[in-house]
C-alpha cells in the first residue's frame, strides 16, 4: 500500500487511475443499490424476464459450445504450426473485436437471411435465423468467439511442444498426445476463455437486435423496456443482469487466479 504513494508521481497516478475505477464502479453500484431485493425478486418472477434470461444463457452456452468444438482445434493449430497466410487467419479471428457489432449483425443477415442461399438451405431443415433463437446464437458466436480462440491459443502456446513429442515416443498417437497432454495442460486457459466468451455472449446487444429482435434476449428486453416504459421499469432488469454478470465474472477471476497461483 505504501508503495502506491511512494512519491508525488505515483500519488498523482493513483488519483488519475481512481477516477477511472470510480467511473466504472459508481454507476454499477448505483443501479444495484437503487433497486431493493424485493423488486429484484419480483422481476425475476416476471415470466417474460426469466424466460428472456434463460434464453440468453442458453444461447450463449450453445454459441460457446460451437466455438469450443471448432475453435479449440483452430487455437491449437495457431499455437503449433507456422503456415503461409497464418497472419490472415489470425486477423480474421480477431476482426469481430473491431467491427461495430450492429454492422456484424447486418453482415450475418447478408449470409443467413431468409432469402440467402445459406438461409434457404438451413430452412430446408426447419432452421431459421432471422427472428429466431438460432439467430441469437450466431450473433453471439460471431462477436465473442475471439475471446475463446485467443485464450485457448495462449494456453496451448504455454505447453512445451516437446512434452507432446515425449508422449509420442512413449507410444501416444497425435490424438492421444493431444487429449492426455496438451489439452489438460491448456485446460485452465481454455476454461477462462469459455467463461469469458460465455459472459461476453450474454451481454451482446448490437448484433443480436439486428438478427433477432424476437425472441427477446435479455439485453434486447432491457432496451425495449427502457424505450416503452422508461428508466423506472427497465432498472430492475438492468440490476438483475448486472448481478448475474458480476457473479460470472467473479468465477472467472477465481479460475484465472488459481492458474496464476500454480505457475
Amino acid at each position, binding site marked *: 500500500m505504501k508503495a502506491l504513494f511512494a512519491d508525488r508521481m505515483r500519488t498523482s497516478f493513483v488519483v488519475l487511475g481512481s477516477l477511472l475505477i470510480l467511473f466504472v464502479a459508481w454507476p454499477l453500484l448505483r443501479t444495484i443499490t437503487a433497486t431493493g431485493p424485493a423488486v429484484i425478486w419480483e422481476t425475476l418472477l416476471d415470466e417474460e424476464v426469466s424466460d428472456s434470461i434463460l434464453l440468453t444463457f442458453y444461447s450463449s452456452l450453445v454459441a460457446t459450445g460451437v466455438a469450443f468444438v471448432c475453435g479449440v482445434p483452430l487455437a491449437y493449430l495457431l499455437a503449433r504450426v507456422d503456415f503461409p497466410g497464418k497472419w490472415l487467419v489470425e486477423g480474421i479471428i480477431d476482426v469481430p473485436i473491431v467491427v461495430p457489432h450492429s454492422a456484424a449483425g447486418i453482415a450475418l443477415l447478408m449470409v443467413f437471411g431468409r432469402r440467402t442461399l445459406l438461409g434457404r438451405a438451413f430452412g430446408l431443415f426447419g432452421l431459421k435465423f432471422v427472428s429466431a433463437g438460432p439467430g441469437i446464437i450466431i450473433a453471439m458466436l460471431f462477436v465473442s468467439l475471439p475471446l475463446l480462440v485467443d485464450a485457448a491459443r495462449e494456453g496451448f502456446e504455454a505447453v*512445451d511442444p*516437446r*512434452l507432446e*513429442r*515425449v*508422449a*509420442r*515416443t*512413449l*507410444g*501416444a*498417437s497425435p490424438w*492421444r498426445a493431444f487429449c*492426455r*497432454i496438451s489439452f*489438460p*495442460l491448456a485446460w485452465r486457459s481454455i476454461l477462462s476463455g469459455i467463461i469469458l466468451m460465455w459472459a461476453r455472449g450474454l451481454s451482446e446487444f448490437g448484433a443480436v437486435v439486428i438478427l433477432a429482435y424476437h425472441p427477446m434476449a435479455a439485453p434486447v428486453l432491457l432496451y425495449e423496456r427502457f424505450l416503452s416504459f422508461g428508466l423506472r421499469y427497465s432498472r430492475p432488469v438492468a440490476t438483475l443482469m448486472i448481478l448475474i454478470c458480476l457473479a460470472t465474472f467473479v468465477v472467472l477471476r477465481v479460475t484465472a487466479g488459481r492458474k496464476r497461483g500454480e505457475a
Partner: protein
Amino acid sequence: MNDSARMQVRDLWLDLGEFHLRQIDLDIADGEYFVILGPTGAGKTVLLEAIAGLHQLQEGHILLDDEDVTGMPPERRGVGFVYQDYMLFPHLNVAKNVAFGLKLRGMGREAIKERVTGVSRLLGIDHLLHRSPATLSGGEQQRVALARALVVEPRLLLLDEPLSALDPEMRESLQRELARLHRELGTTTMHVTHDFEEAVALGERIAVLNEGQVVQVGSSEEIFRRPNSEFVARFVGVRNVFPGEIRRAGDGRRVFRFDGIEMAVVTDLAGRAHASLRPEDIIISKAPLRSSARNSFPGRIATIADRGTVIYVTVSVPPDFTCVITRRSLEEMELKEGMEIHIAFKASAVHVF
C-alpha cells in the same frame, strides 16, 4: 532388455530452416553406447528427434534392426527419448509419468504397478512416486525421465544432453548411473552432448557433429589423438586423454595406471576411468626436476609443432604427452626432435573422470 536394436542412418538430409542436417550416415551396433559430440547449434537435438520420428526427412533412411522405419510414426518405433530439461508431464505425479507409456499399451493395473516399481528401484526413485514433478530436484527429475523412457523397454534410447542442466556433483553421479544402467540393461543408446569429458567417459564410440554434418566418427582416442579436421582439433581442444585404471598405491594414495606407467592423481574414483591433462600444465626440463610435482617421467621429443604464438611438443614416454611451450623456452632450451628430456606435472593437474 534383449529387444534392443542396431540402428542405422543412411544419407539423412533434413532442413528445418534454423537447423539442417546434411548427409548423415551412422551405424550403431546393438547394445552400443554411442555419443554425438558437437557445439550448440550443430543440429544434435534435431538429429535425435529425426531418429525418433518427430521430423519428416527430406531424404534418407533410418533402419532399426534392418527394418526401414523412415515413414513410421514415432509412437510405433519403440524409441525412448530423454530431453535435457526432463520434460516431465507437470500435471501427472511421478508414478503416472513413469506409467504413461505402459498405460498407452493397454497394460493391466497390476502389471503396470509391478513394472513401475521395478524401474523406480533401478533408478532409485521409488520414494518419489507420489510427488509432483515440480517438487523434485534436477537430478531426481532426470531419473524420472529416464525411468519413464526405460519402462517401456525401448529398442533404442535417445538422450539429449541429459546431464547438461544438472549441477556438477549431480552430473557426475548421474553420469555413473547412465554407465551402470547401460551395463545392466544393454539398451542401444545415443547420447548427445557438447561436453567432451562426458563423451569420453560414456561413449564406446563418438561422432563429432558440426553444422549439421558428421565430421568424424571413432573411439575417443581416435578423435582426441587424430582429429581429422581443424574443427575437431579446435573443438575437442589439444589435451592429453588416457584410458586407464585407478589403483591404490602402497601409501594409500591413488595412482592412475595406463600404458605401463603410473601417475599420482587426486580422486575419489576407483576402477576403470579416464585421465586428462592440459598441455600447459606439463613442465619440460633437460634434467629431472626436483619440485613439488609428484609426476616426473623421462621421454624423447617425438614432434615439435609450431603454431605461431605457442609450440606444441609431443613427448614420447611412451605414451605420448602433448606439452605446450613458448617460443622463448624452445629457443632457450634448444629443443630438437629426438632429444631426451624430462616432463613433470602435479598430481592435482590430472583430471580423472
